[in-house]
Every structure is written in structure tokens, then in C-alpha cells.
């Protein structure tokens, strides 16, 4: 069970929570205030969401822990590639339809 022992401390949890609060407030503010044009704004808030994901993975889910080789990390990375393929691929393939509508 030694791999479970080091499950972060109160400090990392609080830090993670603070980060995630900031990363929630920031895009909300950006969107409500319309700080930049639409395309840029879209990219910005998506990037912030990815940052937030990373925070959750490291501060809350302790992705770096566990015994080596870290198969779960490999699975997640491949999963991220597939997620991107599914979403971006579908949008790319189906755009022809938005021209029709």
C-alpha cells in the first residue's frame, strides 16, 4: 500500500482549490466583459479550461503517483489524443453541413 501513502497535504488541496476558483472566475469575467473578439475569446477560455484540468489532475487526482511504469498516465495521454480526434474530427467532417443549413 505504500504507493497510496503520499496523497498530498492540506496545503496542496487548498492551493488547488484556490487555483481552480481563479480559473473559473477569469473566463467568466472575460466573457461577460467581452474583453476581446469572439475567436480570441474562444481560444482563451478553452486554454483556461485545459489549465484547470491540469490543476485538477495534479492537485486533486495525484496523477503523478502510483508505481512505475505509470500505465494510467499513458492511457490518459492516448485518451486525450482520442478525445481531440473525436471532437475536432467530427467538427471538421461535419462542417459541410453547416454550409447546407
Amino acid at each position, binding site marked *: 500500500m505504500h504507493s497510496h*501513502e503520499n496523497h498530498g497535504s492540506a496545503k496542496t488541496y487548498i492551493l*488547488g482549490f484556490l487555483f481552480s476558483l481563479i480559473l473559473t472566475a477569469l473566463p467568466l469575467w472575460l466573457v461577460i466583459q467581452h474583453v476581446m473578439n469572439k475567436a480570441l475569446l474562444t481560444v482563451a477560455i478553452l486554454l483556461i479550461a485545459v489549465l484547470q484540468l491540469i490543476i485538477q489532475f495534479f492537485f*486533486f487526482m495525484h496523477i503523478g503517483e502510483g508505481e512505475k511504469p505509470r500505465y494510467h498516465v499513458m492511457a490518459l495521454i492516448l485518451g486525450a489524443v482520442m478525445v481531440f480526434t473525436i471532437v475536432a474530427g467530427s467538427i471538421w467532417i461535419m462542417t459541410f453541413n453547416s454550409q447546407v443549413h
Partner: protein
Amino acid sequence: MAQPAISMDAHQEHHHDTFKLLGFWIFLVTDCIIFACLFAVYAVLRTHTDGDLTGRELFEVKGFTAETLILLASSFTSGLASLAMQKGSKKHLLGWLTVTVLLGLSFVGLEITEFAKMASEGAAISTNAFLSSFFTLVGTHGLHVSFGLIWMTGVMVQIGRYGIDAHTKEKVTIVGLYWHFLDVVWIFIFTVVYLLGVM
């Protein structure tokens, strides 16, 4: 008994602890794919409103911000629960899990209220493609949260009965992982559905 045989068997058993965690991580990856498909459908259909109201008219900033904050807080408290478990404090563990479940319940409650309000305004799942994809994506997340609530309650009953031991520790770790994962998914719903919707 001879030494080698024992150490080999012990070798496999020792690893049994980490089996479940790895399997659960892989399950989470498959769940990621499920949500990826729902996001893909939403991304393709979000403009297909068939002449009806769009997200900008339907989504309320106050409502979804509250939902987001509640879920973020519950992810934090479930983290505190596993911290209490590491310290071996059954009381604090159960306490933080209770807070997590209550936060989860209020999240689901808010979501149901939001859905009901939209439906009463004539924006239901059968109205148009945009709303169908919206309700399936957000609703699937809501179902996951509800399932997690039942699961977490079950784990709490077991902690009450058996205390903190290897079994319950593993269960708390796994349900905690699930809970954080749902928070991650929500971040993308918050961004892609709500923020892009009201933009």
C-alpha cells in the same frame, strides 16, 4: 514451505491492490471518450436551433456559476475527506464525505430546477437539435453525479460499519477519483456549453 513459492504468490497479491486503481483509471478514460462524443455532438448541433431560442437567451449566468462553484467546492471537500482518511480519522472522513454529498445534492437540485425552468419556457429535449444535444450532454453529467451520490453514500455506510481498513480505503480513493473526474468534465461543460453559449 519453501520461500520462493510464497514470495511469488505474495508478489501477485500485493499487486492486487493497485489493480483496481489502474482498472478504474482506464474506466475513466473510457468515460472521457463517452463525454468526448457527447461534446462532439453538441459542437456539431449547437447552431441547429431550428429557429428557436439560442443558448444566449436560455442560459442564466447566475445559475451555472453557482453550479460550477458548488461542484468545485465538493471536489475540494472530497479531497479533504481522503486527507482525513490518510490521518486515520473516521469522524472527519465521514464528516467531509457528508459535506461532499450535500454539495452534490444541491448541485443536482439546482440542475433539475434549471432544466425544469427551461422546459417550462418551451425549451425541452424534443424542441430542437441544439436542445437535444444540450440536455443529453449536461444530463449525462447529471446522471453521473447522481450515481456518484448513491455510491458515496454506500461507501459511507461501509465506513460506518467496518471503519477505515484496506477495503474501505480503496473504495474511498476510487469514489474520490470519480468525483474529481466529474468536476473536470463539468469544467468543460461550463466552458464549452455555458460560456461559449452566453458569449
